[in-house]
């Protein structure tokens, strides 16, 4: 976990790839598997650190995968914005692997005039970009080959998130669409078939969603009312549904609290795949303000400024001071204990970034 970095009003969205908590005495530099990518709105500089280091100016937003870094960039104020894909190994030196210009600045704000040059002169900077969406309808990007993909403009996408093999889209009316492989129930249509085109999640029809999030093989969405719906793979308890692996580990740990519901290997009570949305109540009954998913864990911020996490915990990504995995939501006490009010959370594949401010009373 990291707290607010200094000299920065609010960090935009860190896009973290793989890293983990090094054991004491170990050289973190040598062990980091991937890179951290952070973007600070103050100076629009992209900073790459970890197993590779580098910087790029003029970046509005960034996404990273283990091999590539994708940026939305206005290299020189006044020139059109571009999406650029860089090989991480290049350390952001030389030329990007791939670029594509943003031809028209659309996006959320009204266009001032009919000018089709993006960017600058004192005019509105590019909206907080919502990568993988770009401020031009018809396509989206991802930090893996091929870097751009078509997206039906009729969908009027407000938010797009990518899992390991699937995608979730939230449109302007609050409806959720999914596509990709469905083998682990991550599409939420009730079967395990793949969908080549965006298909609306019918189980959520009529509800207005405010946000979507995708983990490696699971999906969630938060409604305007603050309710949480979750579906997909539950092998590490990332859906907060009973997980066999967790129950078996608890049985073998001496002295551990054995949950009353664990039977003796009755397969029917464990859920490994949830193929359509399940409503999830947090223990406190609180409403959810925002959520994020890692590869196999989930983190949720409530409207009262608390953070709950669950799912795979082996690399400390749940923040409960241990490496246990959980199949039930648990509050991260660190923040309450330190009088911190949690405002935002972003998960990397195996880690969790939390934005918190000094407690409000």
């Amino acid at each position, binding site marked *: 976990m990291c707290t607010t970095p200094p000299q920065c009003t609010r960090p935009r969205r860190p896009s973290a790839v*793989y890293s*983990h908590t090094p*054991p004491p005495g*170990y050289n973190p530099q*040598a*062990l*980091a*598997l*991937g890179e951290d990518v952070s973007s600070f709105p103050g100076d629009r500089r992209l900073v790459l650190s970890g*197993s590779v280091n580098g910087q790029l100016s003029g970046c509005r937003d960034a996404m990273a995968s*283990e*091999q590539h870094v994708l940026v939305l960039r206005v290299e020189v104020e006044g020139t059109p914005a571009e999406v650029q894909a860089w090989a991480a*190994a290049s350390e952001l030196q030389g030329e990007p692997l791939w670029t594509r210009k943003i031809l028209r600045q659309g996006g959320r704000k009204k266009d001032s005039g009919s000018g089709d040059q993006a960017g600058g002169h004192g005019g509105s900077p590019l909206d907080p970009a919502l990568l993988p969406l770009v401020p031009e309808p018809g396509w989206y990007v991802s930090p893996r080959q091929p870097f751009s993909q078509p997206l039906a403009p009729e969908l009027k996408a407000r938010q797009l998130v990518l899992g*390991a*093999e699937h995608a979730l889209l939230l449109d302007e009316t609050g409806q959720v669409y999914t596509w990709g*492989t469905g*083998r682990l129930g991550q599409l939420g249509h009730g*079967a*395990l*078939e793949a969908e080549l085109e965006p298909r609306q999640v019918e189980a959520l029809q009529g509800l207005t969603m405010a946000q979507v999030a995708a983990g*490696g*093989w699971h999906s969630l969405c938060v409604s305007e009312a603050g309710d949480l719906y979750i579906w997909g793979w539950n092998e590490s308890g990332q859906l907060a549904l009973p997980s*066999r692996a967790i129950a078996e580990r608890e049985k073998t740990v001496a002295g551990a609290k054995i949950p009353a519901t664990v039977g003796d*290997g009755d*397969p*029917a009570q464990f859920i*490994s795949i949830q193929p359509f949305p399940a409503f999830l109540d947090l223990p406190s009954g609180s409403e959810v303000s925002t959520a994020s998913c890692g*590869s196999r864990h989930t983190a949720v911020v409530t409207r009262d400024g608390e953070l709950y996490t669950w799912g795979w915990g*082996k690399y400390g990504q749940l923040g409960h001071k241990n490496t246990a995995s959980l199949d039930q939501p648990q509050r991260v006490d660190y923040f309450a204990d330190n009088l911190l009010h949690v405002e935002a959370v972003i998960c990397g594949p195996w880690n969790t970034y939390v934005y918190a401010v000094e407690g409000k009373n």
Partner: protein
Amino acid sequence: MSEASLSDNKMSATCSLSEELRDLLPQTKEDFKLDFSEKVEKSVVVLLHQARELFYEGKKNECLKTSEIIRDYSWEKLNTGNWRDVDKEWRRVYSYGCLLKALCMCLKTDDIAEAIRVCDMGLLMGASILGNILVKVVNVLQKHLQHGKRPSETGIEELSKKKTKSDHTLTPAVKLGTAVPQLQCPSLEFFRKNYLVPQKPVILEGIANHWPCMKKWSLDYIQEIAGCRTVPVELGSKYTDEEWSQSLMTVNEFISKYIVNKIPELKQDICIPDYCCLGNGEEEDITINAWFGPAGTISPLHQDPQQNFLAQVLGRKYIQLYSPEESEFLYPHETQLLHNTSQVDVENPNLIKFPKFTKASYQSCILNPGQILFIPVKYWHYVRALDISFSVSFWWS
């Protein structure tokens, strides 16, 4: 060492295990090859090199932690996309992770059964590395495993209770006119001309009855040779049920929990039928599976993409066979996952939902120990075990 209060026996056992394992490995770290295609990300290759370095420097704890990361990362790759599309390089990475973990665990904590489990995961999901070293490591580990963890007598008692209390106690009668023909040791040419080419099922006698497994395989023997090994297990009475699932567990666990394949050592007790040479493939392309389960286990009506010899070792199986030409009467599932499986429950068909099923003509048999059934490619087959059953199937092309 002289001050340690450890028993001398334990100390020397650990030492000899370490030595034996060390002998299996390349002597120098340079010989411990780590070559991967570009598919494997640079950061992962860096980690593998680090792990190798740590191992040869004797830093077991740190090597263990690094191997865990390698395993976990590659495991996620193995779970991305369809299994057949998973790049072999990632399966090799996974095997390296398992190998190093097993070696570091063992030398540190002496927890041999867990190390065997880790190696088995590498064998099940990984791909061959360093001259198939995982098999050799497992063999060494098995030798050193204490035999204290065998299922108790109670396990065996419960087993015999289950045996007498099977669900389907009535042995079905093979309907007149539907019986699969039986032949005693036909020549290759006779089999080819009359059964392989026209794709007709036949029971072969006198072939398998001399295989060592026919005499040797019993529950005790299986437990002795393979009890600590991890295998995939299907749970649920049939795979079209909603509660069907697959799970990984050791053979001992399976026996003690549910009773009552993937073990190379058991392969020595069986022989590949000569008839397989009539196919186009190489001998190493023949897939051999061992099937082991209680009475009442049902395989719902389905077809496989290769020719199959099903050899019965212990117990009897009731089998019904439908030619691919009958497919239109068999209502295969429409989903991609199950399109080779019929929706019809053969011994209890829903004729309101599946009326055409009555039109399907079939053959049937009870396959006894020592017999081999030839199931032509894509021939629909339904199987129910009448007793605790061991079978071996050979898939070939």
